[in-house]
């Protein structure tokens, strides 16, 4: 809402505060003043002048005039490109040295072969309008030499206020002025107190639907369709951010801006039969003022006459009954519609209008007659119209009376407000208050947001000032600290960073193409109904698309060695629709809550990583990704094992499965060459993904680790080199050795991998060192050899391993 201070001041007599002080006071009271616009302050040296003569200069691409302008003290010669003025017209004249908006300074110059000693100004050039067709012609009796800024009262400030949904009444100069009066403790001149004559014998209006509980219709006749809006009216509209259109439209807009009551003007001669406000019938259509032919919904509240819908109630009028340049008979509508109905209709037809904005937030239903009267008076005064008969169908329900303990505001704020303070503040917002300790409060008609004690409390606290509220730290009961899961998730993140990875936070929106390129279309991710971009219309079922996008960006910025990780939710499954959505009057039943949760897609938290370039002095390989995941497991006191995998988006020969107690929890691999090509990431890039929820869950279940018995007896180490076929996984051989070597095995490590003619084609030698130790004695050679032989035999059994050198 844009509120010119020149419009506001007459409603708050005695207001001497500066615009900035007014803005600041409103901010303190809870109105969001986004900006104070200033007009006319940057115009200087423009005076009233009379055109003495006009000489048309020919031979130029456009008409050029050479004139003499009398500004009283002297006569200036000037060259002008506009043609909408005549000899004798009085115009604004910028003398040499004058300044126009934007710091544009006027100087004497040579142009079109003449001296131009100033400038005749248009409205746009004076900052009065966005654009203007030609020179601004002033009233002929304007005294020559007078400062135009003074004459036209161009200097003004406009408060630009962002209106929150609860404060519909501040979508009017009236509502803002009331707040200003309260803030400065000044009297308020309510423009809504206009007395309407008794209305009877007017147009037939029927309200069968509760969506409209009041409808005032006034007939205005004999309007001069050619009567222009006076400058003051146009100026107010422009400052308030609306475009002047015609007198009738401008008047309805003026009343709406001043009082907050949207009005609609029908061309009376186009109406057929009584006006009925009802819901649209199935199949009905309406061509609205914006020339859109709209299919109406049976929920839409419409104004109808005998032919059917003629306006979308409270949202937009219809084209057929629109006033035209010839309209002289008008039916003025000043009505009150149910906010939620207007919200639904405006949203359904994507038609947010000045009217719907106000009705959605609640218009003062008591104002309908006064607003209509205000418009009628203006049309009579400015358009030569005659007020005809009126109708006021009034089905307003009685306003509820609220009960408020006088001590309640103080108990909410933690401030000791007196009863008098509470009553005074409530009366300032317009409430009628009675009672001693239990206050009976009737909120004013323009505050439909005041529906309960909490809302009344807020009025008292905000007007008294939030800065009065003391600062007290509450004492919470002893807490349990972070949950085990929360601590473990921190540990997981630290482990990944310690492994050399840099965390990224990416958006969860992905495209079908990206999923197809990655072979991740096996998941069934949720789809967004209104995505940011049509391409990225899915929610990520995997962290890899986002990570690879970030990898690309890093590489694109010239980084070669990139190591990224992300932890976060992914989304799988479409979710479902809940049939029985709970109300909000009370706690939902356990079944209702379970149904709400069951409707959500599955949202596991994963950890993902991508690597490219070099790491640890050599090119990254799948082993790097596997190692990071194993390190992540170790950080959570979990032992992950490695198996062979073959899943997208990985190279089938370079893909690992990570298992926890035999169940897959993650994958790692080198990206498939096709994926590399499709995404444009560096070849041989490596990625991995693991179910962080599963790891953390397992770590929580595992509980605290048990201390080992650290043996002081001497160890015995033996080395074995086993020849196995090269498709046998080292991890499998190791697992077999560990399993068979028995309890005496303390440590096992692979220290050499050898391929060559000595071990045969298609085979490799894996050399392990095994360290044995007993907890209660020094081992004999025989015990050690027996354990070693058992391990080797098991490896031979399971993997066809042959002991080298045996």
């Amino acid at each position, binding site marked *: 809402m844009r509120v010119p201070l020149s419009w506001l001041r007459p409603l708050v007599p005695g207001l001497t505060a500066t615009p900035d002080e007014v803005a600041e006071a409103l901010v303190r009271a809870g109105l969001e003043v986004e900006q104070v616009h200033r007009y006319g302050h940057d115009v200087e040296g423009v005076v009233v002048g009379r055109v003495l003569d006009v000489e048309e200069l020919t031979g130029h691409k456009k008409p050029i005039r050479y004139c003499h302008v009398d500004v009283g003290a002297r006569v200036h010669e000037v060259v002008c490109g506009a043609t909408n003025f005549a000899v004798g017209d009085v115009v604004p004249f910028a003398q040499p040295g004058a300044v126009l908006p934007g710091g544009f300074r006027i100087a004497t110059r040579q142009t079109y072969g003449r001296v131009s000693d100033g400038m005749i100004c248009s409205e746009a050039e004076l900052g009065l309008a966005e654009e203007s067709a030609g020179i601004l012609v002033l009233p002929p009796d304007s005294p020559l030499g007078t400062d135009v800024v003074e004459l036209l009262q161009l200097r003004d400030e406009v408060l630009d206020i962002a209106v929150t*949904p609860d404060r519909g009444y501040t979508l009017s100069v009236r509502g803002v002025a009331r707040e200003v009066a309260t803030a400065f403790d000044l009297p308020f001149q309510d423009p809504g107190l206009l007395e309407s004559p008794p209305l009877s014998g007017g147009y037939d209006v029927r309200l069968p639907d509760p969506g409209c509980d009041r409808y005032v219709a006034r007939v205005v006749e004999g309007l001069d369709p050619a009567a222009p809006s006076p400058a003051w009216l146009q100026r107010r509209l422009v400052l308030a951010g609306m475009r002047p259109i015609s007198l009738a439209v401008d008047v309805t807009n003026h009343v709406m801006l001043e009082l907050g009551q949207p009005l609609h003007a029908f061309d009376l001669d186009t109406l057929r039969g009584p006006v009925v406000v009802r819901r649209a019938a199935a199949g009905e259509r309406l061509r609205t003022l914006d020339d859109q032919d709209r299919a109406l919904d049976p929920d839409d509240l419409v104004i109808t006459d005998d032919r059917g819908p003629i306006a979308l109630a409270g949202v937009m009028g219809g084209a057929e009954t629109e006033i035209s340049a010839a309209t002289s008979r008008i039916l003025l509508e000043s009505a009150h519609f149910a906010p939620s109905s207007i919200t639904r209709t405006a949203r359904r037809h994507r038609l947010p209008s000045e009217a719907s904005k106000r009705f959605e937030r609640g218009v003062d239903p008591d104002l309908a007659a006064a607003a209509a009267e205000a418009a009628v008076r203006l049309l009579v005064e400015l358009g030569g119209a005659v007020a005809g008969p009126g109708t006021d169908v009034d089905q307003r329900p009685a306003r509820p009376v609220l009960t408020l303990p006088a001590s309640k505001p103080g108990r909410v704020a933690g401030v000791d407000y007196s009863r008098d303070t509470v009553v005074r503040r409530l009366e300032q917002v317009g409430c009628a208050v009675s009672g001693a300790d239990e206050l009976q409060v009737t909120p004013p008609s323009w505050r439909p947001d005041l529906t309960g004690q909490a809302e009344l409390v807020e009025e008292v606290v905000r007007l008294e000032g939030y800065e009065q509220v003391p*600062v007290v730290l509450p004492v*919470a009961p002893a807490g349990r600290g972070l949950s085990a899961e929360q601590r473990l998730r921190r540990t997981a993140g*630290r482990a990944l960073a310690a492994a050399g990875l840099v965390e990224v*936070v990416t958006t969860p929106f992905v495209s079908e193409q990206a999923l197809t390129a990655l072979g991740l279309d096996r998941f069934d991710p949720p789809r967004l*109904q209104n995505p940011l971009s049509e391409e990225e219309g899915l929610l990520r079922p995997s962290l890899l698309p986002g990570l690879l996008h970030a990898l690309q960006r890093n590489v694109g910025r010239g980084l070669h060695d990139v190591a990224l990780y992300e932890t976060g939710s992914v989304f799988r499954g479409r979710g479902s629709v809940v049939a029985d959505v709970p109300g909000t009057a009370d*706690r939902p039943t356990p079944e209702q809550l379970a149904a709400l*949760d069951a409707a*959500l897609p599955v949202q596991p938290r994963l950890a993902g990583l991508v690597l490219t370039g070099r790491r640890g002095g050599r090119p990254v390989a799948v082993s790097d990704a596997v190692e990071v995941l194993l390190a992540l497991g170790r950080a959570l006191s979990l032992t992950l094992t490695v198996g062979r995998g073959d899943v997208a988006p990985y190279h089938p020969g370079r893909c690992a499965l990570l298992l926890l107690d035999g169940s897959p929890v993650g994958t790692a691999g080198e990206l498939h060459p096709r994926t590399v090509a499709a995404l444009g990431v560096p070849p041989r890039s490596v990625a991995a993904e693991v179910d962080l929820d599963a790891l953390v869950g397992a770590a929580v279940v595992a509980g605290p680790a048990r201390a080992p018995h650290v043996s002081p007896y001497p160890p015995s180490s033996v080395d074995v080199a086993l020849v196995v076929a090269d498709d046998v996984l080292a991890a499998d051989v190791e697992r077999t050795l560990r399993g068979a070597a028995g309890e005496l095995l303390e440590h096992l490590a692979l220290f050499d991998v050898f391929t060559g003619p000595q071990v045969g084609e298609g085979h490799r030698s894996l050399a392990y060192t095994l360290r044995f130790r007993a907890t209660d004695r020094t081992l004999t050679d025989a015990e050690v050899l027996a354990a070693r032989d058992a391990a080797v035999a098991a490896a031979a059994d399971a993997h066809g391993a042959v002991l080298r050198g045996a």
Partner: protein
Amino acid sequence: MPAPDYDPKQVALLDPSELEGARDAGLAAFAAAGSLDELAQARTAHLGDRAHVSLANREIAALPPAAKGDAGKRVNAVRRALQEAFDARREALEQERDARVLVEERVDVSLLPGLVPVGARHPLTTLQERIADVFVAMGWEVAEGPEVEHEWFNFDALNMPADHPAREMQDTLWLAPEGSGLVMRTQTSPVQIRSLLERGLPCYVVAPGRVFRNDALDATHSPVFGQVEGLCVDEGITMAHLRGTLAHFAKEMFGQALRTRLRPSYFPFTEPSAELDLECFSCRGASTRPGGEPCRVCSSEGWLEWGGCGMVNPAVLRACGVDPERWSGFAFGMGLDRTLMVRHDITDIRDLYEGDQRFTLALGTEA
């Protein structure tokens, strides 16, 4: 038995001048030895079994008892002098050798061919942990909720029924199909509802997390951003407790230096409601004073919006089965991105979400 007339001075080996000569020769030889090998040879010559001093020592036994003491002192003095000179020289030569070897073994300790550089966690992550720690230290707990949420949690229970204009204040991302009732949560406030339903009373929770809006990514907007929600519901909670909590939180985040301000505002789920403003970290309000330089960070308003807060609306309590006559509470929500921007002078929000590892490495090491 030695001859009684035997005069030790007659024995050439024991002649004092001979002994001195042998000593001097030995000292000279040791001093001249340029290596441990040469020194070993000089030792054999001057301290070995066949050396003058050793032979002289042997002669002492043959001397008459009266002469033995004198001769023994002389020989021992010489032997000690030689031994000390030898030890000193050996020590010096060994040191020279060791120094040479250590110099030869020098390596470039800054050359780290196998280095895996340390990574970093994202500043949004470390900030969330820091915030959680501030509240956990006060006895609060950390609550969580899903990112795809049912509208009942994200809107209805927060006093935003379907036709409420407040739903228009947030550009909501809805899941298909139309009417699914599922949204990308637009705020962390649904965690308030889940906390009240699941945790019981009193309830002191803080919930950092990611939220989503249908906003294109630019320097100051992101479709994904971090938020932290706080909720306190207990008996006798007032706005004074809200102010106390926010003041403590702001001090922990920004130190004493930045002032905060509560400004009346509107949120459906709180009543009374307030915007929480932070003094502009860049101009500290100077841009609003007459003649002040315009401030790009706060658009010369002197304040930055940090978050919203207020007393929990009784309608919200009722939807969670909490009796508003007995319990009251406050809630607040702040942008984590804005918090980070203020703490670290970040001017472009995209840096947080583009994943450039140079950015995160510089910021993500904070514990």
